[in-house]
């Protein structure tokens, strides 16, 4: 019996829209359902997995880095990749190569790979469903 596979296409950069958080919640729920997931990160979404993201302190509220405990999307993506491994579910996260080069974000968390729009074509052809989450 063939496995169920979902492909998500993300476009938004991190820390700007609820869409990024919702997308990661969908990925998390799919993995926990035993559904294989492909993610094609396009345009600003290639920064979601940028490895040099850093949490910061909050001077206004007098909290240091540790107390602020600021979440980063790269940490969430690394956690999703770990969850997929733990559950023997496939999570294939591909960042659009030209979009990476444009933005200089060529250092992603382990498990995220560089690709091209042809990967999206392959993803869509091999998936049960494809959901495009557009910018606005």
């Amino acid at each position, binding site marked *: 019996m063939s496995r169920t596979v979902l492909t998500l296409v993300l476009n938004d950069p991190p820390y700007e829209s609820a869409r990024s958080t919702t997308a990661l919640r*969908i990925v998390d729920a799919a993995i926990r359902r035993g559904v294989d997931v492909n993610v094609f990160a396009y345009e600003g979404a290639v920064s979601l997995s940028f490895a040099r993201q850093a949490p910061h302190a909050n001077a206004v509220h007098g909290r240091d880095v540790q107390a602020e405990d600021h979440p980063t999307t790269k940490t969430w993506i690394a956690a999703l990749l770990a969850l997929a491994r733990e559950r023997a579910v496939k999570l294939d996260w591909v960042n659009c190569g030209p979009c990476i080069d444009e933005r200089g974000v060529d250092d992603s968390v382990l498990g995220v790979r560089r690709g091209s729009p042809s990967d999206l074509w392959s993803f869509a052809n091999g998936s*049960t469903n494809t959901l*495009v989450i557009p910018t606005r």
Partner: protein
Amino acid sequence: MAGYVLIAARDPWEGGDSQQVFELAGSLAAARDEVTIYLTENGVLAARADGGERFLTPLLAAGVSVFADPFALEERGISRERMVTGVVPAAIERLVDLLAQGRPALWY
């Protein structure tokens, strides 16, 4: 009967284009297609009683299923007692299940 899934993520009071998802749902239902709307993010504002009925009640009457993301409802302080009658809170796993059935899905 394609079984469309329309994901409404925008505040319907933002303007006309954010209401198009409801117009599309109504058109599909009129064409006897099975339609599910999943409200998330600011889209759950349409689920508020004493306001959201204008968008959702005609669709519910036409047989459209309307689910609302409890995470988004809670973020916006919308209690289940203050929701449009007929809207069903459903965790995001419900959306995943609909997508996993291969239903055509559109994000608004």
